[in-house]
């Protein structure tokens, strides 16, 4: 990280996280929404690694691995659930998946 200050990494992480949040709120396809969540988690990983490097510790690196494991588990489960939805409905648009009354 010689030459590149910590704040740059944190700003990049914040920007990526915001992009993920925006994608989650704006996009209408379940798959894209799901990818936005992965982007948010990767932004978190970046900030963990940056902090960890700055502090000369391994804790942040460790946390990154756990976040990756959770993201992978979530993706596996999520795609299975999305598949079940698609089988029963034939659509993956968030707006059309609303059969329950409000």
């Amino acid at each position, binding site marked *: 990280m010689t030459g590149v200050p910590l704040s740059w990494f944190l700003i990049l992480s914040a920007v990526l996280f915001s992009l993920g*949040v925006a994608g989650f709120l704006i996009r209408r396809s379940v798959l894209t929404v799901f990818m936005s969540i992965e982007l948010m988690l990767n932004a978190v990983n970046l*900030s*963990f690694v940056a*902090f960890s490097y700055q502090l000369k*510790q391994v*804790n942040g690196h460790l*946390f990154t691995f756990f976040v990756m494991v959770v993201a992978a588990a*979530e993706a596996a*489960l999520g795609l299975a659930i999305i598949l079940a939805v698609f089988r*029963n409905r034939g659509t993956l648009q968030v707006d059309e998946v609303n059969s329950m009354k409000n």
Partner: protein
Amino acid sequence: MSQYYTSVDHFVLVPAILLALFGCAVLLFDFLLFPEPRQRKYLVWFVALGLVFTGGALWRQQHFLSVQKIDSITAFGGTLTIDGFALFFNWIFLAASLIVALISYKYLETAGEHQGEIYGLILLANCGMFFLAAGTDLITLFIGLELMALCFYVMVGFLRGDRRSNEAAVKYLLLGAFSSGFLVYGFSVLYGLSGSTKLAAIRMALESRGASDPLVILALVTVSVGLLFKISAVPFHMWAPDAYEGAPTTVTAYLAAGSKAASFAFLMRMFMGPLAPSRELWEPLLAVVAVASMTVGNFAAITQSNVKRLLAYSSISHAGYILLGLIAGNDTGVQGVLVYVLVYVFMTMGAFLVVAALRRKEMLGEDLEDMAGLVHKSPGYAFLMLIFLLSLAGIPPTAGFIGKYFIFLSLIQTGHYVLAVIATLYVAVAIYYYFRIVRSMFISPLTDRAPAATSLGLKLALAVTGLMTLLIGIYPEPFLSLAQNSLLR
């Protein structure tokens, strides 16, 4: 740190090991020992056995604490702490898991989706809850939360052929993962601020930094978003009515009771621990959230015609009440939170159990009209439901009154008079919509004569929840003193 796995570490971890092993064993037994679908109900006994063993391990820990006269046992270099608080919540989780296992086989059989995996998932979710109540490290808490949440995503979508169940699962999954993203982003900032993932170290670091540091505020806001989502407080409640309605009713009961209790344990650990130095910032924030939760929960419940949805909104308003105890923040308030969570678990599960009992093959039994004249058909269910609803509304001599009493007392002790008045007024609104169910059960004429479902497990579960709801209301002293000894300091 010379030894990596000491006997103390093992002693603390035993309940989690048992839950995880039994969870995996049940998954194996499902197809090794019981290949026939009708044999799957025997798995309930394995779950019960696992929970009894876990209870024994927890009892040994409780016994150790009281004999040695110490407050807590710390293990794994401070990542896990067994104290009264962790044990109190773990007893609640065990009770919730046992009740859900007991009622699941009949309900899922009726719904035509009785798979053995549900029992494994119940135990593994309980394992996650253990780490949420006992964890004192960000990594432990995060893994515990995700272990619990991942099991719940599957359980909510358990009725694979049912469109509502699919929909509930996908909504819960997307919003759950979204909120976890916020939470873990907040964790990364907390780590950056303190250079440690241990709650105690983070607290010291935040104390020295002062509350108005922008990074502290960023961490506070993102962590709060994640936590408030998990307890389904307004404005992060949108998932709850859909997830509660679409999920199998037994899973709804577990979601409303177990998952919410575990999330409150997590929330208390965070707000009474690392976030305590910035109390002046989060106290008004949580007050707004609590009032909004009570408002939205109570008023939205009035117009619901689906009982599960109605109870979902009521559970949102209960989250608001429980938050009030944290806002008061004195010992009475924390005791109030513990007692309220204990009481809430039994009365909410009880109410959902009665709804689950009305399910038949061709009928969901979730609408208000499906309850019409229930007292003529199954008076037992109708009177039990009456007890649960009275308790949910907070009317003495039921348990709900005891929970509300301590919350209100703590608010008055700490001078939050406005919040106390608002909370009391909303009780009146709550009585109105709970009595819509009562009116339907007791006054409306009987329309549907087919008998309600019954099974040994259901009877046992209803007996336990009904008895606890009355017992805590009539003879609260042992539970109060247990909560008194479980305060988080």
